[in-house]
């Protein structure tokens, strides 16, 4: 039997093929394999012969991506000859990006600029050109982890997100659409547009905006794309007007996968439950006639048919609360119902995990993956060449230097030099290198009271374990301890095991709990670390029960309020954090603190420095965007705790 998800992916391909550049592109989440190949093959067929398709190798140089000076042709012709890059070559067609989750921000930015402008503007190597490039991008997302995704600049511009993960390769039915259906739809849309025939879609627009609002899609781009998609879907059906089904389909394919929150419950919950099987039974009817009616059939939203009422929706009601969204808004209701079945699995877990909410996501990005790349002339992996002076440290790239020198030879010879190739300082090209920023783990340890003493020992143990590995990863560790009335930086960020051991050995404990002071000092250290170009990760070991405020006076309510403020500051700054609850019985105060600082929460009632150390390691890799979820062991007990 045919997987409805496969059917839906084919539908997306058909929709996309009608007008690729208008929908921007498709993000295909799937491991490389037969299913993905089959989908790409189906898409290629639908696009029709003659559509340019280019694959972009990862780490493609600008000269190939954007274009530049064609040196061979230039020398041959004796005048500058520009060479189009891959993007310009793909004009009117599709660019395929494998391993899109590994794409750098630079490439993503270039693709985004070209997608927006529909042309490639090149200002490189003496060439100033502008080539048309009405392209669409197929981003092949092979990320293993939920957070391992292509750059959001690009994802935002690619309307369709499909997930082929888990579809069986055994029943890959070619689907009801063929290239002639797509071509017809293309022609139909062009003629509707020429006649200004496709009527105003206000109701569709309003419904789509309402749905985007309900499921937490913030960027207006997907909504605009969904309006376009609804028009394309109508054309695919041979209609000039956008119908309810088209809007539902567009919302399901474009808005659904982007949902960041669960929409308010519908009035008839059973309809959403019944939606999937019904849909499956419909699409599995092989006798269905092809082309014209097929798309409606296979996508038919299974929600109860409600009267489409185009005159009704009124904008004059801005106070519409999300939960009353259904009142007299049949279209929005129908569409929302259709989207509900397409919500990404695991959304509930995401929505309740504070680290994955909006601010959490941005904090994570800031903490490592994207922002923290350093360029050092001598370290890191090579990343292109720039004009520069090899005497200042970087290595000379001989080939690039000669390339740069060659076009000027004729002019230089005129200056009276011999016939050998003449290389001047201006030609020097040096290798540019980039380096991933390292992580500095800052332990903020509650050293108050006698019971905390063994926790302190545990933290010391974890610090030492981490340090032993830090040498390999070139990460650093710091330790802030708070007790009595003060917090102090016991161990400034270091990579040195010897130094760490020495300062840890003499660490005292006991006294009150100046939690706010501890968090303030930890935050200040994190700020310094970030300024140095490192990514800070804060690990707090406490029971969350502060009793000394920022004013150094005892008093629990005041102290706890101060601690919460300090925690919110961390969140505002976007520091990646892990809060380890050290109390024997978990206390809500620690959880509240974790929520306030946007930290992961880990109850650890027994002293165990190896568990602590592995949890921290998990957070380090998590905060760098590489697989927090692989380390499921500690997470199993984390998530239920956070859902409060």
């Amino acid at each position, binding site marked *: 039997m045919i997987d409805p998800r496969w059917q839906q992916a084919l539908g997306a391909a058909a929709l996309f093929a009608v007008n690729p550049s208008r929908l921007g592109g498709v993000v295909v989440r799937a491991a490389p394999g037969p299913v993905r190949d089959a989908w790409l093959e189906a898409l290629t067929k639908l696009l029709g012969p003659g559509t340019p398709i280019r694959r972009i190798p990862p780490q493609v140089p600008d000269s190939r991506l954007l274009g530049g000076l064609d040196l061979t042709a230039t020398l041959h012709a004796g005048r500058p000859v520009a060479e189009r890059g891959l993007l310009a070559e793909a004009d009117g067609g599709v660019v395929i990006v494998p391993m899109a989750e590994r794409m750098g921000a630079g490439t993503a930015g270039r693709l985004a600029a070209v997608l927006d402008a529909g042309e490639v503007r090149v200002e490189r190597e003496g060439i100033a050109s502008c080539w048309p490039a009405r392209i669409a991008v197929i981003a092949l997302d092979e990320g293993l982890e939920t957070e391992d995704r292509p750059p959001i600049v690009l994802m935002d511009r690619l309307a369709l997100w499909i997930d082929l993960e888990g579809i069986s390769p055994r029943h890959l039915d070619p689907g009801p659409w063929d290239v002639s259906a797509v071509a017809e739809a293309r022609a139909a849309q062009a003629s509707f547009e020429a006649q200004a025939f496709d009527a105003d879609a206000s109701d569709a627009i309003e419904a789509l905006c309402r749905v985007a609002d309900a499921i937490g899609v913030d960027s207006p781009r997907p909504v605009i794309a969904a309006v376009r998609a609804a028009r394309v879907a109508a054309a695919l059906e041979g209609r000039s007007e956008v119908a309810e089904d088209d809007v539902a389909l567009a919302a399901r394919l474009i808005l659904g996968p982007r949902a960041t929150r669960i929409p308010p419950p519908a009035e008839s919950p059973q309809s959403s439950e019944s939606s999937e099987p019904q849909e499956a039974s419909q699409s599995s009817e092989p006798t269905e006639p092809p082309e014209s009616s097929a798309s409606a059939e296979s996508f038919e939203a299974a929600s109860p048919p409600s009267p489409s009422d185009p005159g009704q929706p009124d904008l004059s009601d801005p106070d519409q609360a999300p939960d009353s969204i259904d009142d007299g808004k049949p279209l929005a209701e129908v569409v929302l119902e259709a989207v509900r079945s397409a919500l990404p699995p695991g959304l509930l877990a995401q929505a309740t995990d504070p680290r994955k909410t909006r601010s959490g996501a941005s904090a994570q990005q800031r903490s490592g993956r994207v922002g923290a790349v350093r360029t050092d002339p001598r370290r890191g992996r090579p990343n292109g060449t720039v*004009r520069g002076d090899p005497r200042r440290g970087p290595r000379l790239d001989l080939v690039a230097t000669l390339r740069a020198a060659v076009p000027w030879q004729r002019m230089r010879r005129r200056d009276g030099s011999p016939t050998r190739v003449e290389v001047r300082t201006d030609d020097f090209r040096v290798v540019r290198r980039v380096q991933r920023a390292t992580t500095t783990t800052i332990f903020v340890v509650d050293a108050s009271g006698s019971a905390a003493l063994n926790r302190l020992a545990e933290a010391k143990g974890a610090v030492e374990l981490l340090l032993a590995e830090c040498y390999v990863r070139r990460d650093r560790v710091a330790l802030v301890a708070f007790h009595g009335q003060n917090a102090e930086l016991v161990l400034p960020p270091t990579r040195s095991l010897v130094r760490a051991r020495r300062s840890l050995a003499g660490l005292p404990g006991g006294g009150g709990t100046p939690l706010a002071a501890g968090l303030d000092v930890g935050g200040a250290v994190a700020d310094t670390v970030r300024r140095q170009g490192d990514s800070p990760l804060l690990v707090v070991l406490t029971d969350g029960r502060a009793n000394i405020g920022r004013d150094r006076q005892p008093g629990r309510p005041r102290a706890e309020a101060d601690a919460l403020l300090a925690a919110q500051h961390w969140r505002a700054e976007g520091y990646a954090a892990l809060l380890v609850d050290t109390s024997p019985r978990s206390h809500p105060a620690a959880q509240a603190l974790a929520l306030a600082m946007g930290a992961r929460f880990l109850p650890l009632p027994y002293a165990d420095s190896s568990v602590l150390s592995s949890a921290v390691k998990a957070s380090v890799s998590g905060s760098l965007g590489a697989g927090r979820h692989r380390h499921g062991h500690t997470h199993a007990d984390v998530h239920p705790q956070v859902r409060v």
Partner: protein
Amino acid sequence: MSLVFPFTAIVGQDEMKRALLLCAVDPRIGGVLVLGDRGTGKSTAVRALAALLPPMSAVVGCPYGCDPKTSNPCEQCRAQRAAGNTPLKSAKVPVPVVDLPLGATEDRVVGALDLERALTKGEKAFEPGLLGRANRGFLYIDEVNLLEDHLVDVLLDVAASGENVVEREGISVRHPARFVLIGSGNPEEGELRPQLLDRFGLSVEVRTPTELKSRVEVVRRRDAFERDPAGFVEQWRKTDAKVRRQIDAGRNQLESVQVPDSALEQGARLCIALGTDGLRGELTLLRTARALAAFEGASQVTDSHLQRIAVSALRHRLRRNPLDESGSDIRVERAMSEVFA
């Protein structure tokens, strides 16, 4: 030529629109940094601004579009003047709004030897780059955080000095390069270097509209524009023209706007309360307030002008305070409520 989305048709984003317009009134404000969410019309606004600006008069044939009346012309215009060809022939041209595409190489940004002439004739000739083309106009960098560091350094240097100096291959060229730098970016995609931040006169933050009504309007106008660009532009032509006249009037009036001592004092007090470094903050504050007064046709700067632009002029100049958890906007607002109490 493809039509661009009209400036006045952009829904909301008043702070961004105001900052761009004020820089058009007084280019000395020092540029705008637009930071914010995806899909908020950052690039759209800059492209729309290009279509909105009143044309300027420029010397015909001058590669840098020199003003025929300028006291600081380029070498070519200076030679012309010295030859007694005054007044120089001039024409009305659109204000340049130059895009700096990602992946641009340094030679095309600052200018370099003309490759064509070097190859075909073996001659040394200077070919101006993007900085030369942007003279008297705007230079726009989308995703400014992705720009390579060495280019950023060049840009900042030239933007501050107003002059581009090229020494290359035995030729030595200096030419005027006064432009308003507009950068846009998304802080989620990479932090900006702090030195870069306070080089911009104004900094505005754009957010996606949260209110359903304006979100619907955003999508509706975009859709209308896509379906019938010419008709849509025509529909907004009048409101665009009105703003254009306002910019023109503001420019003419700029020099006559009075800045009373009280305004100077308030500005200084605000900067002291916020602990901003250096005088740049104060200068920008007053220039922007004066541009706003001129734009609105007022004869002198009042507290209201200062108050409306203070956040844009100061929010990127604050030092991080580890003990203050509130965002910079709130801190500026708070300081204002104290100073203007």
